[in-house]
């Protein structure tokens, strides 16, 4: 492989791929059984972190940034005047293997601009994965992008070689999609997602009968939405997200604060801030739904269509539902413990275990790592000291904010100024 040409291509095609935020390499079960290279069991590994603080786990590149579509929010859109390049299948294979052998990466995340048509593109993505698995004996992680509109046959083949498949719906509502990506149809996104979902279900059924059934996308599928490009509120975004989790059994939905890349007047202009704080609040909501036993409608509903920026969504919920508190740490069930602001699931499990030995007091909780600054107003423990004043929600919020320093202080005041 010619070093200089590869270097040039890699620069172009990794730069174009970086807006896809997924870098997960966990959740697969592909063991190294053939004395080959690589192993994708157990948890993922972040081999490095970029200066923006994001995990680098996979070699994340586009096969090509030539594209027949002209989606306004996308940096590789047809009308954008940028350098174009395309990797050969073998080049991607060589790069992946050589990076992997040096312990730089967990595997490959291959996406692509759409050249000619959906199937032509998908075929090439599948060819890379197939070569890695069958010729190189590669057991590392492979994440392939499902190209909207790709045929069922190709999607089936893709899942046999890939650990994860994803198709980015990017714009949370159909109206937004019509406005920003007029060439793309909502159904085209759904089609491969549906196929993959059904294949996974079928695999699980067959596996029960025949143990050697070949794996199908063992790390499931995911999608991504851009935040702040097309004017949706948090309720609409999370409603879409909730729908995808429930209807397509997605492993993850990613939220990507829109990074302005265009002077198109349908979009936030270049130079406007990336909504990092809002993105964070959406992830917190996502976590509450997936791990903390919250229903979507408890956090966002017709009355509360946007998340608070200055406090986290669990605290917001608690302040709206003061009648559920205080919770007794020494007797409450897991569900209610998980609802106390300032208590993460790890602390919840520690408390459940530790209280079997003795009643827990403030000192114990502090050592365990509970964020008492928030939790103290919502709980009682083995101590005569607890919040006895009958405080209003407003008052509690004020006290908490007064005694805490958000790591987002800077962006918070900026964003509030923008709206204020």
């Amino acid at each position, binding site marked *: 492989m010619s*070093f200089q040409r*590869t*270097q040039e291509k*890699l*620069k172009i095609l*990794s*730069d174009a*791929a*970086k*807006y896809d935020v997924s870098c997960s390499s966990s959740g697969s079960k592909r*063991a*190294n059984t053939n*004395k*080959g*290279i*690589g*192993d994708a069991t157990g948890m993922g*590994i*972040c*081999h*490095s*972190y*970029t*200066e*923006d*603080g*994001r*995990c*680098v786990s996979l*070699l*994340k590149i586009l096969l090509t940034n030539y594209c027949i579509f002209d989606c306004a929010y996308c940096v590789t859109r047809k009308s954008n005047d940028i350098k174009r390049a395309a990797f050969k299948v073998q080049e991607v294979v060589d*790069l992946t293997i*050589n*990076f992997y*052998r*040096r*312990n*730089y990466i967990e595997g490959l995340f291959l996406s692509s601009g759409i050249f000619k048509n959906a199937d032509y593109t998908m075929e090439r993505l599948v060819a890379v994965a197939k070569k890695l698995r069958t010729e190189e*004996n590669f057991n590392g992680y492979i994440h392939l992008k499902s190209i909207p509109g790709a045929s069922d046959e190709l999607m089936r083949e893709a899942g046999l070689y890939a650990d994860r498949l994803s198709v980015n719906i990017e714009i949370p509502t159909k109206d937004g999609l019509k406005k920003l990506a007029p060439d793309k149809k909502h159904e085209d996104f759904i089609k491969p997602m549906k196929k993959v979902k059904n294949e996974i279900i079928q695999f699980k059924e067959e596996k029960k009968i025949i143990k050697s059934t070949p794996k199908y996308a063992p790390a499931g599928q995911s999608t991504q939405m851009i935040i702040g490009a097309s004017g949706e509120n948090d309720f609409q975004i999370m409603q879409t997200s909730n729908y995808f989790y429930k209807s397509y059994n997605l492993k993850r939905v990613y939220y990507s*604060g829109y*990074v*302005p890349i265009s002077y198109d007047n349908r979009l936030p202009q270049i130079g406007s801030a*990336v909504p*990092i704080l809002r993105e964070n609040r959406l992830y917190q909501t996502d976590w509450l739904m997936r791990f903390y036993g919250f229903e979507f409608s408890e956090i966002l509903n017709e009355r509360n269509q946007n998340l608070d920026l200055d406090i986290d969504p669990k605290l917001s919920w608690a302040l709206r539902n003061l009648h559920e508190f205080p919770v007794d740490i020494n007797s409450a069930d897991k569900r209610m413990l998980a609802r106390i602001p300032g208590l993460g699931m790890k602390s919840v499990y*520690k408390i459940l*275990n*530790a209280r*079997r*030995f*003795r009643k*827990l007091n403030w000192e*114990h909780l502090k*050592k*365990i790592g509970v964020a008492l600054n928030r939790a103290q107003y919502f709980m009682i423990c083995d101590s005569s000291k607890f919040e006895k004043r009958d405080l209003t929600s407003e008052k509690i919020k004020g006290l908490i904010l007064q005694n805490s320093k958000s790591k987002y202080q800077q962006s918070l005041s900026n964003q509030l100024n923008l709206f204020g």
Partner: protein
Amino acid sequence: MQGRNLIYDGTFDGFLSAVFFVFEHKLRAVVIQNKFEMQLGLFSDAETIITEEDKANRVWKGVKSKLSPKGSYQLYYAFLSEQKGVEAILLDYITYAFSNAQSVDKDYSHPSVLKIAQIAKSVGREKHRMEAFVRFRLTKDDIYFSNIEPDFNVLPLISKHFKRRYADQKWVIYDIKRGYGLYYDLDKVEIINMEFPADFKFTKTDSEFFQEHELEFQKLWKDYFKSTNIESRKNMKLHIRHVPKRYWKYLSEKQPN
């Protein structure tokens, strides 16, 4: 009662032999010290404990019967931290475990149990970091070579991971700080000690030792690292929290141009 000072050879079996000695003689006030840490003269009455595998195994078997699997690996992890005074906390934990009918490893309101869980967590984090931050460089002998300087003695913990993952390539991971390494010869992992030339620079990829294309791949990786970053989201504080500066020395993507 007079305090006793026990010196062991620094190995886990040695430490467990010392614990055996403590129980055997029903000692109360006792200090267990690694021989490398022992300060001469300070403990003139120090007694050297001879490492005996069968005694060590008896203690370990007892510990395992008293704790959950997680509890016993936490003890081993905490031991590998090599932290000053960790032996005292381990001894207190083990004594507490033996004196209780039920398993105590989740009793996070007990000071030694919590402390061991916390130290084990740091060691676990370091193990995970080494699995991430090892950077192999291909030598002229076709061996993928990496040097590390971990805070804790984590080589025994990462061996399995690398053996499973890189089953079809020869590799060496060398702990420069502790002067030993792991060598995988396509069949098994061995502990090795190496002599390096006096002028050998661990941060430099010298063409005398490394393959011609090695530097090119480092360059590609470095380019990739740079172009995958989103400048408008720059957050150095977060970056440094994930990749603390002390690890930068041997990360190819962090080498100066």
